[in-house]
């Protein structure tokens, strides 16, 4: 802990440099597959859960519909889909991800299927602070052809020290207060919403505005497809 302050500035500088170089060397995202298989409807399967948290899959699923719909896609009712699959002999998301596209097409008829893995979910407590992290990985597959038409990863973090200028004592009090508060109000759903916004809505490699979005035609035209 004692060595942290002198390190902070160079670390920040390195982080900034990394961001700058990462941006400079990044190829533009290839929207070709998404544009040529533009889905009108998306079936979001319950996510694989790689976290030690018991409610990560359910928690993420509850936050998934809104950003996708507001991006212009029809999204099948996630809880109904989940329960129906469970009642039909598929106990976990792992089995649900193994179902063939043909079978999914027969029952739900989605244009595309979204396969998600939740990698991090929840709050870790340290001595002076707590960090809430959500990170996910997503793959969108065209139902008719099996082609992967979009892929993305995102992470969102909220620290209990955000905006805390109170020094060491302040930080200690902050950590205690935050632990008390967060046990009552879990910040994870909000962090998950931020993570989903980073995943689906970012203008670099997020999803293009879908058919229900007012900017859809414009976005398609930018990628060489003029809609009738």
């Amino acid at each position: 802990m004692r060595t942290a302050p002198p390190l902070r500035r160079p670390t920040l500088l390195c982080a900034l440099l990394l961001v700058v170089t990462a941006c400079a060397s990044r190829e533009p995202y290839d929207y070709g597959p998404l544009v040529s298989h533009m889905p009108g409807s998306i079936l979001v399967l319950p996510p694989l859960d790689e976290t030690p948290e018991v409610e990560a899959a359910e928690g993420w699923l509850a936050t998934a519909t809104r950003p996708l719909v507001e991006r212009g896609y029809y999204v099948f009712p996630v809880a109904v889909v989940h329960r129906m699959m469970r009642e039909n002999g598929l106990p976990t998301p792992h089995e649900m991800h193994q179902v063939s596209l043909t079978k999914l097409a027969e029952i739900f008829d989605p244009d595309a299927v979204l396969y998600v893995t939740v990698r991090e979910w929840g709050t870790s407590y340290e001595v002076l602070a707590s960090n809430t992290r959500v990170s996910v990985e997503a793959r969108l597959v065209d139902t008719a052809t099996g082609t992967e038409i979009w892929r993305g990863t995102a992470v969102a973090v909220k620290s209990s020290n955000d905006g805390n200028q109170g020094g060491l004592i302040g930080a200690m009090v902050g950590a205690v207060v935050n632990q008390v508060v967060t046990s009552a109000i879990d910040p994870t759903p909000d962090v998950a919403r931020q993570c989903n916004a980073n995943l689906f809505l970012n203008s670099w490699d997020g999803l293009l505005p879908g058919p229900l979005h007012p900017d859809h035609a414009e976005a398609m035209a930018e990628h060489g497809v003029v809609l009738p």
Partner: protein
Amino acid sequence: MRRRLGWTALLLAALLPAAACSSPRYDWGPYEDSVLAVELDFREQQLMDEIAALEEHIHQLQLRDEVAPPGMHAHVGYLQYLAGDTGAAARHFEAEKALYPQSTVFMDGLLKRI
């Protein structure tokens, strides 16, 4: 630190309105909470509470001449089916299909089950 935050805020302020104004807007009401409740816990009383909250929300939307977002009618229809009210379930599945023809195959399948 503070200066960087200032720039970030400025950048976000410049970007956000452009992103926020043009997306389709729906009033989701208790939908996300209900999804989580259905996912995590399913006692009888909670099922009735979820149905009441969603039916009331859809009623309010109708009074304001707004449409329910994708999936909402299907969700409450399924809850009605679990609660044993197949008439209400069928009405909601038909409503989902009418609003969003993308759901036709799925809704027809549910209508056949009830």
